[in-house]
């Protein structure tokens, strides 16, 4: 995968009513990188991820994802999103959920791909169980399967490790590691500094809507995850 810019963000502003959720955000992410997006609650991480995923439009500024507009159909085909909500339907079974999303993503054989992913996330034994009856960890694993189902080149993950049980964390970490090995790009917002910083190649810190730090992940951050907040976060 060429080291071109997978994601280019230029002068992005976003308002929610009176409040500027994002103020003049500009940075790039190379293809194949794993960016840990850090920041306190309310800093604007989720807002930025939603704009990158084409779910929201910036008030000002430009975004380029894989060379194209975030909202283009071809772009959305290549993005996998894992938000706060798990994005799967309670009244459908695990298999039905994945099969449907497989159809929406235009996969050749949605049923087979769905079955494969159920196995990979350890859900094959409950494939016909309704999501309504799943535990939290199982739901998260299904959400992860939905996110990876269509082989996306860019992964946008909003606090993916939150409220995962150990099994789910292990599954997700494996998947992210192999995704990076395959040259995919990851942007991940997180509070779980340890898990995220282990995988990350780059780091960005958002503080009250502004970009406070953007650089490679350094060894200091890995040794002492709070270092970044102390140096660049607000007092």
């Amino acid at each position, binding site marked *: 995968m060429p080291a071109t810019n997978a994601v280019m963000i230029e002068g992005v502003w976003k308002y929610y009513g009176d409040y500027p959720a994002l103020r003049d955000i500009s940075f790039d992410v190379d293809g194949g990188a794993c960016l840990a997006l850090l920041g306190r609650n309310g800093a604007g991480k989720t807002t930025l991820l939603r704009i990158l995923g084409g779910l929201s*439009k910036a008030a000002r500024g430009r975004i380029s994802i894989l060379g194209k507009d975030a*909202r283009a*159909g071809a772009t959305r085909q290549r993005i996998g999103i894992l938000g706060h909500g798990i994005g*799967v*339907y309670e009244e459908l079974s695990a298999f039905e959920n994945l099969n449907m999303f497989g159809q*929406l993503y235009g996969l050749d054989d949605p049923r087979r791909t769905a079955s494969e992913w159920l196995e990979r996330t350890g859900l094959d034994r409950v494939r016909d169980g309704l999501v309504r009856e799943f535990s939290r960890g199982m739901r998260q694993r299904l959400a992860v399967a939905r996110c990876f189902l269509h082989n996306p080149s860019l992964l946008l993950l909003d606090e993916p490790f939150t409220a995962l049980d150990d099994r789910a964390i292990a599954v997700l970490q494996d998947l992210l590691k192999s995704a990076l090995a395959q040259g995919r790009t990851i942007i991940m917002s997180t509070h779980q500094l340890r898990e995220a910083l282990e995988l990350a190649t780059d780091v960005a810190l958002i503080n009250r809507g502004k970009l406070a730090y953007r650089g490679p992940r350094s060894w200091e951050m890995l040794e002492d995850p709070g270092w970044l907040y102390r140096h660049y976060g607000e007092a």
Partner: protein
Amino acid sequence: MKFLRQTLAIAAKDLRSEIRGKEAVNASVSFALVILLLFSFAFDLEPEEIREIAGGLLWLIFAFAGTLILNRSFARELTNDCLDALLASPVSGAQLFFGKCLANYVLIIIVECISLPVFAIFYNIRLPQRLALLFLVMLLGTWGITVIGTLFSAMTVNLRLRELMLPTLVYPMLIPALVGAIQLSRVLIAGGSLAENMIWFRVLVAFNVIFTILSLALVEIVLVG
């Protein structure tokens, strides 16, 4: 072809959810039955007079009961942020909208097919010889209700007062379709010259075509911006 398959996948998903849960259909049918009951107290009329107003009553029932189903249409996507998952997929707003329209249409028709015989029994109305034509009017009128209702469901999905606002916005918009459907139903049930009322078929078709196209064109703006 893929366009159609994706649209049908969404329609199938909605129908499957609803058939499993049966919440909206149950509520809708119950509501229809309650209105039928209330009408029996409100109107104490001779059979001939009932036949005269039957067409109108029927469409009031269909419109009110239909709104319960339409209210749920986009609201059901808010759980687990499923709407985001759908919008993030390559599916266009138009496909999402049309898939939901198809599902809503089927559900409302089901409610109507249950309500109509009950209505005929409660009010001693012999269903007309021209039942096929009455069914055609139901199909045409219901599509109008579905299209407007689904689009406004999309418009109000994120608003606090969604349940209050949907009926207030939708019913005035539906006047042309409801007037046409009521008039045709009245003629078919109470008897009258269908030839003089052919214009109403044109009104229904025009309403459906115009608002389907307008909705498909504008729904992406409504959902994302």
